């Protein structure tokens, strides 16, 4: 099957790869936002994950340890954000920006001397099953992180919807004063949710540096963290829609790369703006539907929680 010289099977398979980092970051941020914390530092956490994962994988030779280190790096960044916003009660928007600026700087600093190195390869999970026609590349042809990201989406959905922990988390995000009055620990819940978000963003970043590119370059996330934030809005804070959103963006990214390779008569740089323009377009469509509540945003999102008792 092909479409204008582009093989559809290859397109879908590479779309899944391209959307994985954004999906991971977005599902993590969704949980943080469901708990009521708006962390605009996703970009910073992702790039820290990218470099931590890269260094760990190169130094130990194990991509698995790389991803673990990336999750830890992202979670530590998120912990910093949690300390600032939950304990020192700082402005969440400004703190998130600080996290991004700091993350970008720190990652370049950590990455000194890691330019131009190839990381150890992350193997495909199902080996030769990936050689099957059509279903091979799409269903079996990926490495374990792709499957992990899908499991995380499903798991997040199930936990938020069916478990007591998920209910408490949503309660904290909808009305922190009421949750506090009921005896739930608002700060603890939010800190944990933020750290989950950080770990997911970190793994997403490491997927860029270890699998998708695979190399370390400064500022390599190139706005992926911000696109992840936009996807959470697009998804109306629903996990399954994150999957859909990430695939749309992955599709646009892959398509414009294919068009570039096909030598179409549009300048490369103009094609490269496609993912960002699509993000804006999607945000506009979503916000045109009136009202914050109608879009499904948690009611306490971004509000400072200060318990006076």
């Amino acid at each position, binding site marked *: 099957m092909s479409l204008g010289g582009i093989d559809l099977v290859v397109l879908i398979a590479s779309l899944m790869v391209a959307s994985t980092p954004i999906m991971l970051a977005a599902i993590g941020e969704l949980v943080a936002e469901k708990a009521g914390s708006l962390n605009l530092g996703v970009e910073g956490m992702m790039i820290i994950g990218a470099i931590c994962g890269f260094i760990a994988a190169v130094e130990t030779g194990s991509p698995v340890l790389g991803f673990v280190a990336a999750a830890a790096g992202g979670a530590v960044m998120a912990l910093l954000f949690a300390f600032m916003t939950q304990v020192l009660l700082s402005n969440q928007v400004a703190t998130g920006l600080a996290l991004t600026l700091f993350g970008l700087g720190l990652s370049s600093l950590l990455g000194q001397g890691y330019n131009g190195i190839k990381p150890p390869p992350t193997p495909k999970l199902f080996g030769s099953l990936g050689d099957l026609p059509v279903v091979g590349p799409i269903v079996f042809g990926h490495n374990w992180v792709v499957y992990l990201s899908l499991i995380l989406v499903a798991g997040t959905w199930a936990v938020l919807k069916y478990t007591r922990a998920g209910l408490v988390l949503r309660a904290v995000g909808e009305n922190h004063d009421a949750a506090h009055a009921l005896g739930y620990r608002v700060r603890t819940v939010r800190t944990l949710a933020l750290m989950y978000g950080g770990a997911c963003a970190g793994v997403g970043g490491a997927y860029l540096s270890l699998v998708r590119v695979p190399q370390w370059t400064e500022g390599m996330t190139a706005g992926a963290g911000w696109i992840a934030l936009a996807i959470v809005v697009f998804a109306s804070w629903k996990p399954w829609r994150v999957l859909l959103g990430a695939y749309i963006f992955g599709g646009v990214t892959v398509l414009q790369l294919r068009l570039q390779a096909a030598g179409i008569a549009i300048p490369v740089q103009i094609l490269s703006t496609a993912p960002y323009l699509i993000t804006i377009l999607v945000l506009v469509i979503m*916000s045109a539907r009136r009202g914050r509540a109608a879009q499904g945003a948690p009611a306490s999102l971004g509000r400072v929680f200060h318990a006076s008792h």
Partner: protein
Amino acid sequence: MLTLEKRPSPSRFWAGVTPILAVILTMIAGGILFAAMGKDPVEAILDIFWQPLFGDNADYFRAQLLVKAGPLVLIAVGLSLGFRASIWNIGAEGQYIIGAICGAAVGLAFYPADHWYIFPLMVIAGALGGWAWAMIPALLKNVFGTNEILVSLMLVYVAENIQSWMAFGPLRNPEGMGFPGSRNLQQYPAASNPELIPNTGIHWGVVAAAVAAVLAYILLKKHILGFQIRVAGQAPRAARFAGVDPKHLFTICMGISGALAGLAGLFEVSGPSGQISTNFNVGYGFTAIIVAYLGRLHPIGIVLAGLLLALTYIGGELAQLSLGLPSAAIQAFQGMLLFFLLGLDVLSNYRIRVKETRK
């Protein structure tokens, strides 16, 4: 156990002291960071904060201070108006790039003619370019309610791609042997933004920054718009009762910050950097966010903060030469500064009380 008690209104004392405290804490934390990298922390801090002002070649560096502080202050003054009213224009970097491209394109269109009005036209084009780029998130917000943070930020990446396209395509120097980048405006007197007084670093961008700071001060103190901005930030509901139109205010604040960022880009591209290249922008649009906060969103504070951040840029370059400190270290350093500042704000907004825990 320590608890926080909200102050009825922010403490003026702490609001003034926290930026200084934040700088000191950043120096300490930065020193630790540099020590961890195997650099002498004291020497690194001295290189960054002392050498450019009082060391060898200080005359040259003091001039550079104004060259770098100019765009930072110009952008930050604009951003601060919006930030005060909780209008988050995070895309100043994009407005800066588009302003530079529009201004430079107008100048290059006249090449090699020599008229007095070329540079003024470029200034207008630069401001309009930045303004127009900022109007995109403003319009989308006002019509559809789209989040301005994400839209203005996405437009930075779009602007960077346009910049790269311009450098390789439409604006490429036809006599540049095929290298990317436009003609150098410094070598085209009618379109250049030269140093006005030799060896001071003062060019039109620095003058514009000073004028913008003064005007912003008057605006906030004396003008009804300044009052509306302050009320909208501190009490949005009260602002509505006072007849403030939030959409109108949004358009104005975004427009001013976009135009100023565009101006900063134009003055930079026609002066210190000289040409549209793939990397003539050095992140002033993002650093200006730190400048705005460090200056407490106040014009005078912003001028001081702009000079300080300019100092870290220059000192960072010095430390790069003398200690081999990577340039990224300064970026991390600046990020840390914003963290400490935001964290210490707890002191101006809350009282810390010691409370006995009930058993």
